[in-house]
């Protein structure tokens, strides 16, 4: 066996240890003997939460990310409380306090940064000792020292109105002290806010009892043996008995400088996070400078750690870090804030979209260039932050309607902030998972939303809470969860996005689910991925699809919906919800003959026979002699309708006839997720067509509005109007084209409301209505093929597809 390389990490903070975790995740334990120097006597903790510790809302023990046991379990030698003193590049050694020496083959410098102390008189006592009452706010020990000193004090001043300074101010307020923030420039949080937002924040802070002094340069800390006040440049004096200096940070580069590697503002690194002067030395985090940038937030440092780990373990020596777009969502003194990119326009072409409501402390500003987001500030209301930060990061085009960028129209958002959410609050209402359950799972080491959803089953029911689960995971991870690479896959078991998968399937002629696993997933069958693959293959190949029954969910194997006791529900097709005496009689006979325990009218205007045994399914279908209503599949389900023009005195269009035609055309069609449709004879919308996946609403003038992307289930959304057309035939054609576009482009189980929001109605309208991509004729042709391939699955009552398809227990045959 090859001898292990020696890896030394200087710095036991979030960057260094996270990078080590990434290295371990790439099999690094096999390759390296790891030694970490940390000048604090603790394991790695979440520095972002220090203000929580200072304010007393979290105990210090709660913010540890890696307790000491973690180092032991991973056979990492931790020199805790030992400051590294020198790097000797020729002998490849790091020497530390207490005469500790560690040899290295590779070295990672993750020394982070230190508070910057501006040149202010009287910060120290005569003779250079620390002056009692003067603090910085950077470490857990700083926290403890401030807390011990603050008891019984009257007034505290924080020098520096940036993010950290305000966090410190918030922490101090909890000691019942009068808190003043002294800021050198004209508005607070200059990194993240523009002047208007800074002013609004100031007003809000003053309402919370913090006094803010702007444009104040501190000249002197007063007091002979301890702090008694501050003197400003204009000689005014502010009495106080405690000062926290939070005037910025400086990368800790001394060690690197003395070791002779290139240092500018930070330690210069290449795209592998490696020093250009010494291929054995890497730097990561706040001490590193990449392409001129030094980052002070966690998200970039995590991206850096991954690249470094890929490179150092040789897992992927081509991995490159290409810089981070800085976006952050945080809470300052309980005020929600999100900030990304630039805060002021940089060019005449830049478009500003702005909303100001000073009274409520709400401010929103976006800077847009060529339809893309260059920067943004959300203060007070960050309900749109997740969407905007993603659009910023991915540089995706924004919808033309700018208003919707700033507000969720129609749906009031009362979601409590994550911090305020009680731990026992149930997040996933389907599977009964609480906030604390998710947090506990994160603490146990799971770091991606998918891993946590798998382990806790949160979000695995109706799926409505998935977004919230992801937000809680990110919050519990201290800012950002790990990106799960599988998030972009069409199904988790095959590492390809939908377009890549479709291309591979076409190129290689893969016509069955097992062929896809064999060719594209290394032969590993992921059971949960099978139905999604089956749906996609059927869409691609139509009748050439090689149908393997085991790839189907049970509902699609027996064409009925499985119930909690293992029985099934049977819903025959009743187009437009219109039935007859003869049909009702037939249904009643079946109910009697098979002792169906429950007969229920469904929300989709049909009749549901519940509690049918698997063995009875073929008989029930034969006796009903009605086609399947497909009330079980990821497919077109039904089309509700109102009475329309037949009897209703308000009816403007024949909604029943249209619903029957829709049912006749789209019945049984595979779609990425279930589709529920409706037609309404007038805008009174009795059949709720505006909140269906696809709906048609008759309007005055003999026209029909087509709605897409509506929802009224776990998620509620009013559909978007795709277009307005004249005749039933046009409705069918455009609905069909939309459905085919959805079938080809949606992720598996992505309902139309998610799909329409993801692509934007403008884009969908351009493709489906205006044929901007020139694919309308092809979409129509594919749809026509699918319509022609329809076959009533209940015909399997006469010829089962697999052995014992409808048997729940087999007799023993000997």
């Amino acid at each position, binding site marked *: 066996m090859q001898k292990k390389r020696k890896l030394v990490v200087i710095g036991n903070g979030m960057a260094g240890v996270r990078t080590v975790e990434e290295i371990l995740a790439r099999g690094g334990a096999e390759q390296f003997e790891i030694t970490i120097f940390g000048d604090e006597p603790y394991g790695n903790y979440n520095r972002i939460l220090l203000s929580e510790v200072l304010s007393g809302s979290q105990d210090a023990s709660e913010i540890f990310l890696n307790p000491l046991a973690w180092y032991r379990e991973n056979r990492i030698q931790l020199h805790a409380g030992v400051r590294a003193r020198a790097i000797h590049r020729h002998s490849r050694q790091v020497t530390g306090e207490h005469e500790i020496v560690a040899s290295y083959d590779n070295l990672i410098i993750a020394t982070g940064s230190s508070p910057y102390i501006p040149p202010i008189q009287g910060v120290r006592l005569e003779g250079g000792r620390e002056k009692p009452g003067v603090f910085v706010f950077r470490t857990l020990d700083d926290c403890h020292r401030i807390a011990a000193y603050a008891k019984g004090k009257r007034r505290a001043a924080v020098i520096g109105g940036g993010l950290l300074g305000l966090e410190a101010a918030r922490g101090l307020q909890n000691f019942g002290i009068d808190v003043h923030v002294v800021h050198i420039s004209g508005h607070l949080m200059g990194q993240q806010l523009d002047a208007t937002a800074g002013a609004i924040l100031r007003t809000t802070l003053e309402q919370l009892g913090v006094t803010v002094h702007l444009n104040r340069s501190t000249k002197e800390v007063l007091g002979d043996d301890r702090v008694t006040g501050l003197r400003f440049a204009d000689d005014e004096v502010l009495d106080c008995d405690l000062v926290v200096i939070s005037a910025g940070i400086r990368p800790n580069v001394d060690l690197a400088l003395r070791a002779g590697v290139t240092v500018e503002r930070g330690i210069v690194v290449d795209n592998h996070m490696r020093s250009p002067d010494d291929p054995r030395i890497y730097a990561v985090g706040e001490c590193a400078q990449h392409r001129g940038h030094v980052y002070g937030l966690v998200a970039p440092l995590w991206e850096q750690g991954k690249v470094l780990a890929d490179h150092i373990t040789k897992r992927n020596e081509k991995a490159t870090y290409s810089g981070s777009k800085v976006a952050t969502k945080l809470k300052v003194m309980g005020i929600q804030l999100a900030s990304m990119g630039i805060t002021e326009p940089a060019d005449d072409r830049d478009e500003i979209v702005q909303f100001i409501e000073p009274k409520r402390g709400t401010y929103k500003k976006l800077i847009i260039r060529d339809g893309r987001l260059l920067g943004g500030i959300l203060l007070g209301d960050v309900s749109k932050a997740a969407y905007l930060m993603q659009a910023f990061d991915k540089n995706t085009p924004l919808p033309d309607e700018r208003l919707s960028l700033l507000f969720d129209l129609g749906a009031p958002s009362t979601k409590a902030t994550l911090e305020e959410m009680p731990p026992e609050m149930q997040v996933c209402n389907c599977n009964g998972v609480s906030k604390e359950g998710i947090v506990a799972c994160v603490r146990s080491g799971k770091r991606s939303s998918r891993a946590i959803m798998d382990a806790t089953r949160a979000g695995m029911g109706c799926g409505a809470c998935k977004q919230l689960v992801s937000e809680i995971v990110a919050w519990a991870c201290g800012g950002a969860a790990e990106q799960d690479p599988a998030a972009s896959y069409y199904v988790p078991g095959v590492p390809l996005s939908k377009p890549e998968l479709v291309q591979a399937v076409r190129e290689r002629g893969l016509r069955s689910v097992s062929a896809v696993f064999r060719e594209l997933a290394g032969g590993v069958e992921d*059971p*949960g991925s099978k139905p999604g693959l089956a749906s996609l293959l059927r869409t691609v190949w139509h009748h050439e699809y090689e149908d393997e029954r085991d790839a189907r969910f049970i509902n699609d194997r027996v064409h009925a919906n499985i119930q*909690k006791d293992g029985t099934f529900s049977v819903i025959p097709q009743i187009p437009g919800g219109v039935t007859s005496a003869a049909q009702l009689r037939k249904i009643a006979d079946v109910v009697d003959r098979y002792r169906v325990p429950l007969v229920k009218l469904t929300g989709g205007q049909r009749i549901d026979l519940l509690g049918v045994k698997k063995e009875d399914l073929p008989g029930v279908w034969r006796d009903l002699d009605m086609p399947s209503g497909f009330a079980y599949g990821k497919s077109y389900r039904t089309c509700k309708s109102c009475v329309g023009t037949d009897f209703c005195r308000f009816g403007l269009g024949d909604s029943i006839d249209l619903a029957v035609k829709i049912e006749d055309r789209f019945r049984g069609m595979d779609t990425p997720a279930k589709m529920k449709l409706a037609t309404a004879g007038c805008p009174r919308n009795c059949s709720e067509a505006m909140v269906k996946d696809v709906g048609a609403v008759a309007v005055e003038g003999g026209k029909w509005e087509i709605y897409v992307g509506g929802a009224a289930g776990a998620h509620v959304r009013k559909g978007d109007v795709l277009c307005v057309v004249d005749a039933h035939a046009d409705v069918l054609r455009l609905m069909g084209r939309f459905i085919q576009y959805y079938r080809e482009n949606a992720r598996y189980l992505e309902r139309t409301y998610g799909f329409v929001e993801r692509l934007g109605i403008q884009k969908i309208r351009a493709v489906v209505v205006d044929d901007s991509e020139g694919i309308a004729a092809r979409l129509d042709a594919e749809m026509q093929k699918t319509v022609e391939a329809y076959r009533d699955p209940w015909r399997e009552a006469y010829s089962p597809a697999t052995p014992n398809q409808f048997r729940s*227990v*087999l007799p023993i045959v000997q």
Partner: protein
Amino acid sequence: MEITLGPLSTIPPGEGRAFDVGSERIAVFLARDGRVFATQAACPHRGGPLVDGLLGGCTLVCPLHAQKFNLQTGEALNGGPGLKTYPVRLSATNQIVVQIERDGG
């Protein structure tokens, strides 16, 4: 004791079927790679019929609430109680043979 349940052809590839053996209901699965597994038939979570689940390799997903199990070991992959497994083999004539413990009576 060993009990012959019937020919392997009663189970379509990649699916499972249930058999009543005395007072026990046993699920037998045929993986696409040819392996055969035998476990208790009811999901320990809420009693779902495991033979109606989705099978991939030796992982089975219950059709009711997507509990996952390793059929080889019986282990529940998303927590909770696991499955009872039974030794199972194929006879020379491709008959499914399971081994069950003979209970006292």
